[in-house]
């Protein structure tokens, strides 16, 4: 076996990514074909910027989904003779394995390509999930604060500003320390933070169906069951069936990221709510005698979705960067984890001699965040257009 040339490296990578290409083509073909029927999502395909952004994001999403088929090696396996091997190096004794390290080896002789691919999965499970929880918390608190105003608003706004006055890094150092993991603090915080989404879904359904008790009981009951099942596993690691679960340090990182993001979402939602509250259709619903939660959840929230979706995309990108920052300060998710932040940090020290171990995850991270930003831009433009 010999060293591969650049062209053949690119060819082989493209070949490994085959499932991703197929999925992308299918999604784009279908979306463009039916774009008039798909609402805001369909309009995305009218904008060049939006399409590029969407393609970049979906590329990484599909990479994360099909990661098991794409990787050429175990991302944790270390093979002798492959330390800092340049891209396209052949394994000394391949055996049944894929005979090359397509993008070279890192300083511990692991396959850079497989790690970057697995890193996509790592990043794309934490970042959107954390952003989602932050959004649910921000919405659940921002809606009543903006709608009711008064003491509630003052109190919640003060709390949000308090968290925002913290330098993010200081907060991370305080919250993501191993000493904190030993205490009950992350569990308690997770217990509170994860409870909000469950309540959110419950209130959402209850407000919609409370006139039809039968349907209401069914939906709310089902939501509660699933909600608390996930809740017990995620927050307390006490899932009886063992489906939901989170390692202590991951939970710790997760809680810290949610804690940092939620106040900003809260401020955005509060601002929008205060604005929409004065609209005619809200007044109409009030005259109809609808309850406040119905108005908030089913009148105000749907009308606020444009800016919220845009911010959601941006926030996933920001969360990805934040996770990388944690990796930079050695507060990362899991020690051998292939997540991009930690790999960039591991590789950056030797950047001048062996650029590939750091450049590959760095470019991956940049392209994903760029994609999310472009997508947000496209969505903003298109949602402003109607």
């Amino acid at each position, binding site marked *: 076996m010999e060293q591969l040339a650049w062209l053949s490296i690119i060819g082989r990578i493209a070949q490994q990514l085959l499932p991703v290409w197929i999925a992308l083509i299918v999604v784009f073909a279908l979306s463009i074909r039916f774009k008039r029927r798909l609402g805001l999502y369909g309009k995305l395909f009218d904008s060049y910027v939006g399409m590029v952004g969407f393609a970049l994001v979906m590329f990484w999403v599909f990479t994360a989904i099909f990661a098991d088929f794409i990787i050429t090696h175990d991302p944790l396996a270390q093979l002798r003779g492959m330390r800092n091997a340049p891209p396209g190096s052949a394994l000394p004794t391949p055996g049944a394995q894929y005979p090359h390290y397509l993008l070279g080896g890192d300083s511990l002789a692991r396959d850079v390509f497989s790690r970057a691919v697995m890193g996509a999965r790592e990043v794309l499970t934490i970042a959107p999930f954390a952003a989602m929880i932050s959004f649910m918390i921000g919405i659940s608190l921002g809606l009543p604060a903006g709608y009711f105003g008064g003491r509630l608003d003052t109190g919640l706004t003060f709390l949000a500003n308090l968290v925002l006055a*913290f330098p993010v890094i200081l907060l991370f*150092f305080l919250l993501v320390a191993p000493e904190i993991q030993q205490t009950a603090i992350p569990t308690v915080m997770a217990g509170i933070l994860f409870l909000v989404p469950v309540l959110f879904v419950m209130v959402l359904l209850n407000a919609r169906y409370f006139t039809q008790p039968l349907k209401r009981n069914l939906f709310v009951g089902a939501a509660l069951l699933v909600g608390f099942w996930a809740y017990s596993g995620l927050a307390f690691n006490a899932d009886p069936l063992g489906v939901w679960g989170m390692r202590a340090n991951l939970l710790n990182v997760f809680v810290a990221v949610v804690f940092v993001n939620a106040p900003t979402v809260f401020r955005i939602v509060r601002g929008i709510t205060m604005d929409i509250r004065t609209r005619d259709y809200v007044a109409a619903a009030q005259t109809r005698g609808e309850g406040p939660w119905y108005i908030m959840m089913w009148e105000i929230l749907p009308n606020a979705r444009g800016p919220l979706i845009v911010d959601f995309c941006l926030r996933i990108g920001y969360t990805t960067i934040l996770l990388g920052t944690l990796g930079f300060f050695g507060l990362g998710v899991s020690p051998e984890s292939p997540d991009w932040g930690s790999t960039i940090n591991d590789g950056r020290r030797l950047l001048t001699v062996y650029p590939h171990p750091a450049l590959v995850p760095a470019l991956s*991270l940049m392209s994903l965040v760029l994609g999310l930003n472009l997508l947000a831009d496209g969505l903003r433009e298109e949602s402003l257009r109607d």
Partner: protein
Amino acid sequence: MLLFLARRIGVMLVTAICLTFVVFYLTNLPAKLETLAKTQAGTRISDAEVARWLDRHGYNQPMLVRYGEWLGVVPGWVREEPDGTIRGRCVGVRGVEAAGERCGILQGYWGHSTRFRAPVGEVIGARLGATGMLMLWVLIVMVPMALIVGILAGMREGSRTDRSLSTFAIASTATPEYVSGVLFIALLASSTVGLSPLLNQWGLMDAPVLFQGNARSALEGITFWNFTLPVMTIALYGMGYIARITRASMTEVMTQQYIRTARLKGVTFPNIVLKHALRNALIAPFTVIMLQIPWLLNGVVIVEVLFSYPGFGWTLFEAAVNNDIELLLAASVVAVIVVLLTQLISDIGYVYLNPRIRVT
């Protein structure tokens, strides 16, 4: 206006107290205190020695009492050693006679840094100065650059200039400091790869590297060569956001009626932009720039650590890593003041620039 100011300052105080208590609580957990004792008295000391060290240095009292000591509302701890010397919180500051008096923030005493073995006030003061220089240069570079990019892009929406500049702005926000800083060092400050070996080869440069990849020497004197990379790293990441806000604000202004009128009147395009559009287009970016300052703090920590420039961010990092309680507390007070002060300035500036709004 005065009432408004008074209320804001009141909020600031309450925020600072809440925040420092949280920091105090999290840095005084038993496990954290054990870490502190081990970094102070020796990494491999036994549990009994840890307990004795904590006792001897006044860490064995209830947390609330010690928080009160730090604030200066509770008398400082006093302890008499078997050999008769008196130790205490205030002894180090005001001598033995003052043992048992109050000495905390209210008395102007910020505590003692266990990491740097110096009064906290001194440490923070010196480091803030260094960071001030860094921030000053970042703002000098970042703000004009962002405004120019934003205005050029927003002048003619949808043009090719707009597309390429907007993409540049987005790309810069997608490149966090820990990526761009590292790339800058590799490209511009390495004698083996990047630009420097080429310049050397072509005989355009005598020094082995173009820029210094380390900003330590900037403490003694800032030069173009040692300060460019850290400044650029922060400025690049912060710039994109301001540029995008400016662009959005500019495009909005350019569609206003009075601009159309001016255009119909025959005013030249540069004149329209400079004389009519600019002032109104700059209101939004101004508030954003002010709000950006506390947010830059994040980047400052990364960059100061990356370029080993001992400023405020670097101090914060050192204090956090070494669990230097009183230094961390002081740092968080400074951070709160910076955040809330910039908010205040941004509010006042907003009013000043936009006569339609009044402070109530």
